[in-house]
């Protein structure tokens, strides 16, 4: 049994939306700020959702990527964070502004360090390249998620790394 109306906090890009949902599969009412949608929504295959909104037909692929929700609609991609309101409040209470604070760059896959663009003590801005890893026969750049100062570089060029290895720590 879901409650009559459930409130969600949706973070998309830099914006935050309050979204209310009520109803039962397949008929829902969804309120996004001032927009109200009557939705006929069906799960037609894993992660593939069919939505009818007053006649308009959409297929949306929804999947989880490391905690955030990635949605493809047609050729557009959206990355969102969806939280039931109370959970959102608990999580964010007394937290510092998103993005700031220390960050740790971890190798997502096994690979080989091709080159390293920073050294301890370097000041980095959000988006600065930290290092390049070769994996699956391709070179991949890894960038700083937010500004900070490089505290540690735990790898050297040419080194093989495993998924999960800590590569760079930014204070």
């Amino acid at each position, binding site marked *: 049994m879901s409650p009559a109306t459930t409130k969600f906090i949706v973070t*998309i890009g830099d914006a935050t939306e309050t979204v209310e*949902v009520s109803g039962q599969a397949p008929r829902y009412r969804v309120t996004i700020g001032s927009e109200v949608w009557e939705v006929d929504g069906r799960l037609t295959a*894993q*992660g*593939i959702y069919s939505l009818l909104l007053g006649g308009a037909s959409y297929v949306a692929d929804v999947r989880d990527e490391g905690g955030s929700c990635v949605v493809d609609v047609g050729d557009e991609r959206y990355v969102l964070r969806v939280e039931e309101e109370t959970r959102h409040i608990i999580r964010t209470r007394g937290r510092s502004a998103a993005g700031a604070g220390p960050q740790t760059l971890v190798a997502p896959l096994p690979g080989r360090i091709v080159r390293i663009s920073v050294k301890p003590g370097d000041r980095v801005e959000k988006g600065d390249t930290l290092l390049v890893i070769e994996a699956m026969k391709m070179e991949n750049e890894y960038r700083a998620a937010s500004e900070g100062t490089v505290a540690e570089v735990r790898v050297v060029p040419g080194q093989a790394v495993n998924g999960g290895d800590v590569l760079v720590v930014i204070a």
Partner: protein
Amino acid sequence: MKINKVLVANRGEIAVRVIRACREQGISSVAVFSDADREALHVLMADEAYPIGPPPPAESYLAIDKLVRVAKASGADAVHPGYGFLAENAAFAEACGAAGLVFVGPPPAAIRALGDKTAARRIARTLGVPTVPGTFEPVSGAGAMRAAAREIGYPLMVKAAMGGGGKGMRVVRSESELENALALARSEAAYAFGDGAVYLERYLAEPRHIEVQVMADSRGRVIHLGERECSIQRRHQKLVEESPSPFVDASLRERLGEAACRVAAAAGYVNAGTVEFLVDAERNFYFLEMNTRLQVEHGVTELVTGIDLVREQLRVAAGEALGYQQADVVMRGAAIECRINAEDPFSGWMPSPGMITGLRAASGPWVRDDSGAYEGYTVPRFYDTLLAKLMVWGVDREAAISRMARALAEYKVVGVLTTIPVLAHIVAHEDFRAGKLSTGFLDRILPTLTANRDRARSIAIIAAVLAEYERIGHRTDVEPPSPSDNWRLGRRPGWR
């Protein structure tokens, strides 16, 4: 001689492509698989399949001795190398020959002659085929290098003599960068190809990358099957290919084809090969290199010519004459290929291995999907990211582009991230539709490809919120599922 059983020394979609061709010719197929590939599609589709070792290619798909042993043990009389891995490895071709196995590809000598880019440039030069200004021998020594560079002029490129696939390449814009770039290129080349030799070529700004498909039989006949335009690349890796090139007219096609056939003939080439050219704005073309294998993008040539290249490869390898004369090669309409890779184009093309939990491939009129994936397949982390080659044919380029846009919109992959969204933007881009292509195209438009654009924002929010709403709802739902719900519940795990 007749070929009765072929071992396919490859994996993924190209292994599937070859297995299909074998089946259609009444030839038995033998697949090989690393420990990471037991459930790969090529294993499921082949008549026979044998393990060849651990996931790292060096211990499996590159292990010549193992491959030859399995081929002999399985009673295969031929080996098809596909592309990549050992496809352009003369030693492998020789090992097959020595073991009495037909190598479905060119003779080792031709592989060697053309594998060294400087040797290939020398062949072209002696034939009077224009080449990109540069050196015709590997260069070494700072002095000689600087002299050669001055002669060529800046900007120029440092390239690995034994290279390919965009590796071991460096652009040098001024003499000050030369030595450093050289060192880097050498080390990359040594790492990637086991040979650090490099040479210099003039750097052409945003040239068109156009390649010509050739097919030669062992009776001395060489024909060309028109060109492919492969200018849409990222980091020297092709993403979209088409045939014919919107830039090539009948006369340029004939000149390119004639030059390609002459290079192939001079190298004693047999079987399918591709001659690459750079073409500048004035339609001057320059020989770049010859790839001594079946190309990833061979399918677009097949769609416009109606000629089955893998079938011809097998026929030629069996010593038969080509089934076509040059005059029989008639191009009809236009074909485009998009490479669907398991990568996240929105974060630096980072590979996205993992299980494909949902897959709905495009199909319907004039849509061809050459795929190595299926729903439930786990994309391993050890190999390249190519999942499928989506191809379309249309009566003209405009029709083909509209069809590709339609097909990309149909193609759904869940569980791993893919290049589909970027491909959709590329084919929708006015410059692409206008045929304004160059190797710089993608870098130019990439900045405009951002996530979270307004268009379908509300739809995305609704879908994401409903998924979470259902997930929460079902947590509190304690009644046992009815049998008919099993399937849906089975799919629930995707809704995290």
